[in-house]
């Protein structure tokens, strides 16, 4: 009884033959369902896009004038008998898991996700399925996150201390997702928040989409160093080490990323402070999410796919490594937060 699986990995992306559509394809296709607007998931050149309402403006900002249909979470659309619906992934604003159902068989593609409620993205909801395609960017047991309150206390304390020493706090994080999550958790009694142009553009797109964000000031050619001093600057990884950043001197430079959990990775980025803050699930989060789907089979994308699938097999799952072109977060970062 070897039936063709409902979803398969081909050279273009994750494909559903029955419904003739792709999820997060890495090569141009006719119909693309997009989990979220990060550059390795939402790429150029597809004829038609389907995504969540909250991804609308950011997708347009990043991909230009595309043919885009947006839907709400839990809303179902049907293509050739295949039911497609989006469910909150908790990764960034508008991020979704894609549920695909045909003749009683259910698959879920997680996209990127995290379980912790970050206060700005719609919190993750587990979706029951037979087969689960999960990311595992941080699928090693050395990655375990602390609650975000603890991390943000550290960030605000650091800012406060820099403020007292007359230094500017430069905080680096991915422009879509991380930057907004940080902003909403900063203590603005300490000072003002300035933004790099790339981050401000992202904010503007989200605001246009009806998201309310705390007040920020965009750094322009006429912004003076004196004005910024003691305040906090949000900038993308691509700005690190550029003359733009050097002009903010004197500053302390903090980096927000899950990779900061490891000393070696932290030192490689030469930041003054590393804050372990990730929009991906940690080791326990991944396992918890997979358990909650009650799935039989798991396909793993992103990061430590080999080790993590082996571990899942040992605890009784039918787990497989999937070959995809989703960059891990570090590549996104190295390329510079925008692509």
């Amino acid at each position, binding site marked *: 009884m070897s039936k063709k699986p409902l979803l398969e990995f081909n050279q273009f992306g994750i494909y559903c033959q029955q419904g003739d559509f792709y999820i997060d394809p890495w090569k141009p296709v006719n119909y693309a369902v997009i989990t979220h607007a990060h550059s390795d998931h939402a790429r150029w050149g597809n004829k038609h896009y389907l995504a969540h309402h909250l991804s609308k403006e950011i997708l347009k900002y990043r991909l230009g004038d595309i043919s885009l249909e947006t839907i709400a979470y839990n809303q179902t659309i049907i293509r050739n008998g295949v039911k497609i619906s989006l469910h909150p992934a908790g990764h960034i604003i508008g991020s979704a898991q894609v549920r695909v159902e045909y003749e009683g068989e259910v698959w879920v593609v997680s996209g990127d996700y995290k379980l912790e409620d970050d206060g700005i993205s719609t919190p993750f909801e587990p979706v029951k399925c037979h087969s689960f395609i999960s990311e595992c960017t941080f699928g090693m*047991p*050395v990655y375990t996150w602390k609650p975000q309150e603890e991390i943000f206390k550290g960030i605000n304390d650091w800012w406060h201390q820099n403020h007292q020493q007359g230094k500017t706090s430069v905080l680096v994080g991915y422009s879509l997702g991380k930057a907004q999550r940080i902003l909403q958790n900063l203590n603005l009694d300490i000072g003002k928040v300035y933004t790099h142009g790339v981050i401000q553009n992202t904010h503007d797109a989200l605001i246009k989409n009806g998201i309310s964000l705390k007040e920020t000031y965009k750094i322009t050619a006429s912004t003076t160093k004196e004005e910024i001093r003691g305040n906090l600057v949000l900038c993308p990884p691509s700005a690190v080490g550029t003359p733009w950043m050097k002009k903010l001197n004197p500053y302390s430079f903090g980096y927000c990323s899950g*990779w900061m959990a*490891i*000393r*070696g990775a932290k*030192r*490689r980025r030469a930041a*003054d402070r590393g804050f372990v803050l990730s929009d991906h699930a940690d080791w326990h989060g991944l396992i918890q999410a997979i358990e909650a789907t009650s799935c039989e089979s798991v396909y793993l994308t992103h990061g430590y796919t080999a080790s993590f699938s082996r*571990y899942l097999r040992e605890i009784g799952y039918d787990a497989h490594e999937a070959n995809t072109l989703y960059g891990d977060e570090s590549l996104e970062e190295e390329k510079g937060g925008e692509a």
Partner: protein
Amino acid sequence: MKNFANLFLALDETNKTNERIKILKEYLLQVSDDDKINMLALFTGRKPKRQINSTQLKDWALEQSKIPDWLFRESYEVVGDLAETISLLLPLPTQHQDKSLSQWITEIKDLKDKTEEEKKNWLLAAWDTMDQQEKFVFIKILTGGFRVGVSQNLVVKALADIAQLDTATITHRIMGNWNPDEFTFQQLIAAEDASTDNSRPYPFFLAYPIQETSDLQKTALEIESSLGPISQWQVEWKWDGIRAQIIHRKDEIFIWSRGEDLATDKFPELHRFIQNLPDGTVLDGEILAFKNNQPLPFNILQTRIGRKTLSKKLLQENPVAFIAYDILELEGIDIRNKSQSDRRLLLEKLQEDSLHPEIFRISELVHAQSWDELAFIREQSRAKLAEGLMLKRKAASYQVGRKRGDWWKWKIDPLAIDAVLIYAQKGHGRRADLYTDYTFAVWDGDKLVPFAKAYSGLTDKEINQVDHFIKKNTLEKFGPVRTVKPELVFEIGFEGINKSSRHKSGVALRFPRILRWRTDKKKEEADSLESLMLLLPKEG
């Protein structure tokens, strides 16, 4: 110990010298004298004796973390450091404790007479009171692997500021054989030196390199304009051995290597001549493999390093000699402030009186009338098995550490060859998650033969690019090693080359390193094994 763990974290998070000194001073001002001296012991490599071995540590950690053994090993591959891996895998603490660094060090020393069972209970209880950072530093101390990326100079600077003594005095006082049970912080900062440690060496004076690359040689004129007339300089060969200090005080003898390791037992054939030195003598020099009045290549000396026991045969086949460079103490008096020329005269006199001139040799002077002539003489370095020349200002005192101005090393260019990257492995520490350890190959007919491993030499940006290439072009994985599609060409520099039957290529390189990434070359343009062989020293 929480403040010690925080000290470690704070130092880790900045590489600005002044901030690091400030952090060290803040720590020192905040803790007890006992903690200060224990901190200093740890920062200068004086670790408590190891009471729990790696296997025990790993087994107990594995038991606590409840993951399979292979996953533990792979976690270690990701992190690149055992203590850090364990600290990340252990469960969160359920208890609390505020013991000081000295209290923990005492408890570690007390493990000596404990059973394995008692050790385990003690360790698990300790872990259960610590957050990840404290666990990490604690395990480092426990395993004797405590190393901090802070140069001793910074610690010395912080101490000197607090004690209001000069840095040279502190540098000297923290050398030698002390341990924190006998040496107190008050003794360290006393106005008068109160040490009775016969073994205490002097800080080595280190030469600064005259910067050159293969494309950019200094002309004799440039050297003259920066160093002045050659008549003001004492010139010697730069030998490639083990820099060492030799001490004879009150019937005791000591041999210290530059890494501040006591190496007295490693070189028994030197003992007789040291014992025959007058009481209160300290010499600086180089230990070289030496036979029939000829120095031998470094790999001969290497056969003796790291051996626990030295067989008679090995001592006979690979004997060593001491080439004296300098004299630092005579008749128990520190003479480092005398001029280079005066010290040289005293050294010559001492060596002439020695009964063991074949073992106690003096570094031969190189005479040249001009820098031009000296540049010409330097060309003979490789034939003499020297690494180049040492230039020492005749009027200079013997100073502390690496200083610009009075001692220069003028090395010959490294040998170099273009090679293809074929295997890669992840790095450790700072680069734990990147492929940074490479194996290189040269052509033997149409096959690529590996001949060298190299780690350093690329910029962070290049490392990221190469890492990316490796991840995209892996042909096979063997455990942590990836076979990479042969494509990238690098220029590999090295200090020396010798025949070796242990290596597939038949040669062993000394200090191989990446000089640059030859993005302009195709893999076919890399060098051949034959051209590598041509670089071997001529026989006889």
